[in-house]
């Protein structure tokens, strides 16, 4: 197991998951979302090749109201 921060919450997850697998396991939608790892943007086409590492900070953002 590894420990990550996902949208501000600490979570223990299995080792070796890529972003696509992680989002699917946690029921996050990818249709209208975008991902950053350690404050760096990860594009949709990189989801399957980006492996989550221990202590990674992951942000999954989706559209909200804005001014």
């Amino acid at each position: 197991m590894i420990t990550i921060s996902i949208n501000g919450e600490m979570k223990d997850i299995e080792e070796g998951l890529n972003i696509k697998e992680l989002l699917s396991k946690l029921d996050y939608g990818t249709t209208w979302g975008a991902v950053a790892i350690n404050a760096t943007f990860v594009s949709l086409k990189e989801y399957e090749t980006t492996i989550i590492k221990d202590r990674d900070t992951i942000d999954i953002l989706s559209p909200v109201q804005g001014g």
Partner: protein
Amino acid sequence: MNDKRKDKWKIEGKEFDSRLMIGSALYPSPEIMKNTIQASGAEIVTVALRRQSEGDKGNNPFWDIIKELGVTVLPNTAGCHTAKEAITTAMMAREVFDTNWIKLEVIGNQYNLQPDPFALIEATKVLIDEGFRVLPYMTDDLVLAQRLADTGCTTLMPWGSPIGSGRGLMNPYTLKVIRKQFPDLQLIVDAGIGKPSDAIEAMELGFDGVLLNSAVALAQDPMMMGEAFKHAVYAGRLSYRAGVMQTRDMASPSTPTVGTPFWHQFK
């Protein structure tokens, strides 16, 4: 409408009828937001990105409404305090909203949410190199405007006053100078507009558009206020194009003095 009054607005490669840009936040309900945007006639709507909740599965009723409205979305980088945060948020916004437009906000002071001019320039350079069309939210500083224009911005969005303050145009002089110095850039007053007369003032200064949110969302009747702003922006633009008369120190009668009747003859 006669031809002289036709006034399409071209900004960042797109054409619009309305020069009012409106925010999607702070409305009492999603339904009121939708109705207000429609009543305002705005064709460009600002949106943002925030953390998604676990288990969302991509459901997003807010985003469904915005799509249904068929407006052009302008994502912002609200809440970013460094160039890096703003760059990352812009990249994420481009993927989510499928647009290379970004309302670039980098906040430098938490008290009045004043933009950080240095970080703004730093982020603008990177984003323009990455193919973004950057619409920077900035202070009304002439030198900053020059630097941003030099960086490649074709639209600038100086504040009227701090975000959400409703204080109107704090310094019309600086806005006027920016207008004069950059006749070819699209200029939008973004933030601080409190009432329709503020929007008229901005448009009469020759600004190309107005971006606001709180002024409609926090009104007693947002829909009615949206409509009021629609007319105000239009009126202000017509006024600017029509050319306002010169002010005079002395009074000058508007009624002809020739043929003035009897009550003057005994003086």
